[in-house]
């Protein structure tokens, strides 16, 4: 009998969704909660000219930062790149475009993309010449606000502690960070999960991301980099 709603696939099958010039949204904060196996596979497949959307650019050898270090990225939309000096160098030398959004505004732009909205309105950054540049403004009561457009991506990649076969997800502590938002915002969402369990075997009260947002689940082999704090 065919299993219902089974989204579990091999890494090879998941890689069929990646191509040059695409937009990828990724989960994670300083590499914590980024999907190690998917990032390694994107590197190995040689995908290039990527537009990346996510909180930050990790570290040169940790998380999404590896794609930047290997010059696979033409543009980044993020809030912070300080932990990856290579990103700063590529930006300053004009080899990679970087668009900054304040961290929580970025999260809301991704969330808007994930919940079918066209954008958000905020006072944050409206009086800042860099942040407001080129953005439409609107006045609400006494407040001058900017319109921040929603963000989506061809593919979203994220990391979960546990997934069932339908893609219902729970996360691990602070590795949750942007992952539930990224899960909703992709046109095609691929989850790398530490543990995969049968359909319906996660307690419904504990599910953070309902499986309807998820298209594929691949098993994780765990983190394959050394954390900055492990080197001390």
């Amino acid at each position, binding site marked *: 009998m065919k299993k219902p709603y089974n989204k579990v696939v091999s890494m090879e099958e998941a890689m069929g969704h990646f191509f040059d010039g695409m937009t990828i949204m990724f989960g994670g904060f300083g590499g914590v909660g980024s999907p190690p196996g998917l990032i390694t596979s994107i590197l190995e497949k040689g995908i290039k000219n990527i537009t990346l959307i996510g909180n930050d650019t990790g570290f040169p050898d940790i998380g999404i930062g590896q794609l930047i270090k290997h010059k696979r990225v033409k543009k980044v939309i993020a809030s912070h790149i300080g932990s990856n000096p290579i990103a700063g160098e590529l930006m300053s030398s004009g080899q990679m475009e970087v668009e900054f959004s304040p961290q929580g505004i970025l999260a809301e732009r991704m969330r808007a993309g994930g919940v079918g909205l066209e954008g958000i309105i905020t006072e944050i950054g409206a009086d800042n010449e860099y942040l407001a540049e080129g953005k439409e403004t609107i006045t609400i009561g006494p407040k001058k606000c900017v319109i921040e457009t929603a963000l989506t991506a061809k593919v979203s990649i994220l990391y979960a502690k546990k997934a069932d076969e339908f893609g219902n997800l729970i996360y691990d502590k*602070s590795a949750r960070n942007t992952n539930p938002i990224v899960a909703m915002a992709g046109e095609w969402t691929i989850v790398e999960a530490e543990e995969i369990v049968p359909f319906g075997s996660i307690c419904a009260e504990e599910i953070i991301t309902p499986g309807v947002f998820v298209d594929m689940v691949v098993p994780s082999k765990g983190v394959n980099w050394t*954390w900055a704090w492990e080197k001390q």
Partner: protein
Amino acid sequence: MGMGKAMKSKMAKRAAEEIKDGMIVNLGIGIPSLTPDFLPSERFVMFQAENGILGMGSSPPLMQEDENLCNAGGFPVTLNQGGSYFDSATAFGMIRKGYIDMTILGSLEVSEKGDLANWIVPGKRVPGIGGATELAARAKKVVVVMTHTDKNGNSKLVKSCRLPLTSRRCVDMIITDLGVFQVVDEGLVLTDIFEPYTIADIKEKTDADFSLSEQIRYIPESFIEGV
């Protein structure tokens, strides 16, 4: 930046004095992250981290780190009783809605109007705007902890910022390695001086104008003895 441990400690300990019982506090990376080390153990405070933790605790003992329990700087932490985890959008919901009583953060420049510039040195260094814009705009109290001068000896307290701004008119207090300033409507007020520095020393190293508090506190060098 080659800054001595004693200098970092006195700034962090002075910042810790601002943390009162019952506060929700967000700490930036660097010296601000050292302030919990200087809180009395009976102080009840919840630290919020913008990557999705409320009730963040101290660093774990060596070899007991959890790679999926880290602060916003990516370093392992623990969770205190009553703590919770949430996504980044919720973390910034708390921040923008005004639930953060105080944020303590670093900066590259602060103007005498309280403008904050801490995200880019064009052509040189690009930390990125991060969460500082929202924290600075919406936290009830914004405390900047930074060295008084940059590595070339230039004042980081300026009449008006030369670097691109992170947020306007948001800073309430500045703690440097020389002293402490409050930002009021009229400008900067020097309230504390770290000994052995003098008012004359501080005037010489400060581009911004400032007035003197009626009662300046001189903080002795013994402030961090035994730390």
